């Protein structure tokens, strides 16, 4: 509750033109919205555009945010999702299939790891990203919002305008698909984990 009231206070200050409050909101959620957009679209520049659009709504129409409907992150993700699916519809799956090779990183402090570990991590990340990219958009957003944004079922339902039961079904199917696609890594999970250590 205190986090939500803190968010609401920041939103009110930002709506009145307080730049430091808005900057705080950006630093809290900018990366997460971008991460969601990037995992959905797999193209950095487009993910940045989507993130910018989400924050522009926050700037121009702050009154659209209602704290009783969910967190600021949920609100931003819902706007980002709107733009992402608009891109999907406009471009078909052209955006969906593109992947930047140099974007995924296994660990933030990879400079301290040995080259073999980095290589294995990069390969694993590319495989995981490719597997996520092969999911349908609806399953993909469910798994991204749950696994990477760590939203609850209810929050995902709000972002995607779907029932909680539908969200659970999408998540279940997405996990099944990923488990099949990434079976080699899962079956040798212990081995991979040992190698990464």
């Amino acid at each position, binding site marked *: 509750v205190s986090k939500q009231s803190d968010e609401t206070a920041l939103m009110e200050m*930002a709506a009145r*033109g307080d*730049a430091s409050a*808005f*900057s705080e909101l*950006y630093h809290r959620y*900018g*990366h997460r919205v*971008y*991460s969601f957009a*990037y*995992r959905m679209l797999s193209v*950095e520049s487009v*993910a*940045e555009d989507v*993130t*910018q659009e989400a*924050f*522009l709504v926050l*700037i*121009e129409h702050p009154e659209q945010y209602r704290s009783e409907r969910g967190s600021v992150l949920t609100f931003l993700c819902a706007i980002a999702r709107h733009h992402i699916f608009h891109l999907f519809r406009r471009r078909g799956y052209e955006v969906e299939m593109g992947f930047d090779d140099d*974007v*995924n*990183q*296994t*660990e*933030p402090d990879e400079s301290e790891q040995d080259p073999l570990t980095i290589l294995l*991590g990069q390969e*694993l*990340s590319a495989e*995981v*990203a490719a597997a*996520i990219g092969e999911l349908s958009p609806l399953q993909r957003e469910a*798994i991204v919002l*749950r*696994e*990477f944004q760590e939203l*609850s*079922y209810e929050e995902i339902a709000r972002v995607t305008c779907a029932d909680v039961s539908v969200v*659970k079904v999408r*998540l*279940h199917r997405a*996990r099944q698909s*990923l*488990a099949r696609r*990434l079976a080699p*890594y*899962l079956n040798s*999970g212990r081995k991979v*984990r040992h190698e*990464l250590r």
Partner: protein
Amino acid sequence: MNCDDIDRQMEAMLDGALDQQAERSIKTHLSFCPTCQSKWEQLKGLRSLLQKTTTSAPSEALESRVMSAFHREHASERSVGTRWSISSLLPSQAKPVFAVLLIAMMIAALTGAFILGRVTAKPLAMIPPAAPSKDAASPQVSKSPVDPERIVGGGLRRQITAVHSASFRRIPAKTNRQEPNLIESFSSISKAGATYSTTTALPGFEPATGASARVIKGDEKQ
């Protein structure tokens, strides 16, 4: 709780969406069911695998673009608020109505000023003194409770005294005071300069039955 029930609820447990009692039941089942235990391990393994991947941070250019948009928005809000403080208070649908009302009020004010200017200033002082009439022996008008000169000036007073006094009879004092009609009657006289009706009669008098008043201008011959 059989394996199908566990299978349905395992993901909810992974996502932290189960209560403690349900979690305990599942964990008890997992402790003696290798099939469900394997599925549980697979789910945990998948989560671990997904969490090993991270995305790069957005560029700094994105932050500066977003912050610039924020500053632009609030700078424009400030300038608009200064220039259009009244109209900004109105809803956008009401602004055209407000503009029309404003224009109508301006037209009404100008028209009123024009009419007032004509009534009060134009011909009153220009009317020449009326020639004294033989019939106007009885200066009844000067006995009126309202002094015409005080209201409209001497030119009109001279004109009124030229009205045929025989055409009028005095009315009781209790109904004498009709000052608004006096001004009305004077304006009618100044514009028409001739016959006028009972509504324009001087206060304190009313036309005799069947009679009409005639204003005699100075250059007219009776």
